[in-house]
């Protein structure tokens, strides 16, 4: 918002530039939210995501048993029943409870690794875009090409092996793998935006480079960042599953959906429900984030006018 009442027009223009386009950003978001609310499919996705978040937060109250300590070897590999909705695993633990707790790991990894990606991708992308054509740009772009020249799962696996398995490793490995896409996206956007007049105006009144990038340019690219973030969470959850499946994620006895499938593999002949339960859980979660992401993309696209 501008506060130009007490001062002249020149100051108003300068202050508008100095405060960035905060006001404009808010109206854009409000418009997007209005469009999103009308999109029934996206709202299904949003409700599902919120439900999953609720399950993760309230896990101790939702799960009927403890996912780790409530084991009973006499009651192992049972099919679904009234006592155990999704049956029991090879140690006689309640699968439903483990699925509920597994949501915590999946959602945390999805969110945290994307934050790492966001910081790396947006930071480096904005840097490369603003200094396009210089050695900084060159260095960042070559780095992103190197990351992209290898299959991302291998890089994540290699990093996990190098620094040892565990939940923090997953954050770092998946965050490191995803930044190149985000970086290119931001760079492209910054390239177009930095040629616009308001950036020139900001430079003319003496804003520092950092201020121009963070206060003036980055707010303009919120839309693609939000879409990429939502879609990226889905991708990160899938990747976490793969790492846990390979034994590189959170270590047992912590319940994760990927490691549950890994242990279920050997019992596939006698207890297929052990594979299907975590599989369907992942499917629903990834599906929900994709529905929401699709809706966000439509809602934030300035070309769709309502």
């Amino acid at each position: 918002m501008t506060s130009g009442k007490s001062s002249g027009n020149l100051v108003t223009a300068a202050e508008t530039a100095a405060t960035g386009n905060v006001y404009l950003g808010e109206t854009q978001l409000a418009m997007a939210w209005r469009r999103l609310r009308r999109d029934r499919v996206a709202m299904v996705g949003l409700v599902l995501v919120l439900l999953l978040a609720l399950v993760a937060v309230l896990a101790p109250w939702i799960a009927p048993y403890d996912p780790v300590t409530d084991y009973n070897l006499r009651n192992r590999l049972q099919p679904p029943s009234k006592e155990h909705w999704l049956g029991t695993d090879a140690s006689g633990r309640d699968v439903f409870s483990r699925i509920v707790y597994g949501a915590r790991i999946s959602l945390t990894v999805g969110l945290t690794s994307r934050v790492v990606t966001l910081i790396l991708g947006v930071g480096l992308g904005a840097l490369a875009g603003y200094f396009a054509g210089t050695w900084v740009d060159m260095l960042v772009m070559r780095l992103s090409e190197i990351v992209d020249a290898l299959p991302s799962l291998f890089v994540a696996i290699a990093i996990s092996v190098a620094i040892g398995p565990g939940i923090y490793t997953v954050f770092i490995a998946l965050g490191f793998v995803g930044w190149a896409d985000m970086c290119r996206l931001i760079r492209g956007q910054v390239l177009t935006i930095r040629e616009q007049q308001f950036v020139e105006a900001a430079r003319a009144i003496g804003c520092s480079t950092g201020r121009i990038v963070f206060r003036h340019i980055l707010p303009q690219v919120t839309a693609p960042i939000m879409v990429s973030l939502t879609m990226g969470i889905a991708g990160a959850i899938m990747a976490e599953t793969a790492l846990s499946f390979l034994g590189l994620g959170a270590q047992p006895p912590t319940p994760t959906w990927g490691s549950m499938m890994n242990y279920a593999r050997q019992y596939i002949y006698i207890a297929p429900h052990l594979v299907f339960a975590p599989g369907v859980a992942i499917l629903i979660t990834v599906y929900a984030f994709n529905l929401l992401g699709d809706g966000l993309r439509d809602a934030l696209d300035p070309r769709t006018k309502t």
Partner: protein
Amino acid sequence: MSRYFIRRLLLVVPVLFGVSLFTFILFFIVPGDPVLSVVGERASPETVALIRAELGLDKPLPVQYATWVGRALKGDLGRSFLNRRSITESIQARFPVTLRLSLFSLAIAIVLGIPAGVWAAVHKGTWIDAALRNVSLIGVCTPVIFQGLALQYIFGVWLGWLPVSGIGDGSWRHYLLPAIVLGTNIAAFQARLSRAVMLEVLDQDYIRTARAKGLSQRVIVYKHALRNAMIPIVTALGGSLGSLLVGSALTETIFALPGIGSYTLDAVFARDLPVVMGAFLFQAVVFVGVNVLLDGLYVLIDPRVRYD
């Protein structure tokens, strides 16, 4: 044109250099001695020193790296720490498996994905569109691990129609399930992309002109629209081929196929450093190579594209 490709190829060199350096560094910051993880903790110091000298690990790191790159340029990727087999030969033996699986998967993806996307776009807003969109979204959201295990259970265990895993005599039956897993995943992605691209093309003026001329829907969709929609579709297919050829580690592992993906994965877990470095380098070369070839392909399918 040829000048463009020479420049493009020259740009590949620093990328490959970076990849090799990245893997080299990554595995030297690994805690623990690579030799000890191979010979075991109980080996005598003399044995360890002997092996270290034999493998060239006693030399300074830059020397080791230079030696390795020098040999790699001549096509010699060295030998495995674990079983002393030639890495180049192992890759030669395993790549055909990955190649067959990739082409099989890609065929499934093309046959299912593109028609589904085109069909959905033509019937936009109808139940056909809604159904196809949902199916393809579910396909995109299904983790390969889950799909692989589920197919193993349904067709291998329950119905008993196909082998659960392994390569057996190498017949197509052993490739079918893994190819379905990879193929349907790519098909789902292709369907979503094809639909979006077709919708954009069908909205353009020249399509309206074609309609106004009274051309049949068939000619409009397949002759006028699809041809223009092919560029992004082929780009994405090429990208998929690139990632398929470097091996689908998870699928190959679940179905116990001896391809490049499972080779790399096993080596990473065994900390078989030379194999990991060799396999990574090979994969990067294939991946980048496919992308360079694709750039050439655009010129063939889109006469508007010019590289100067």
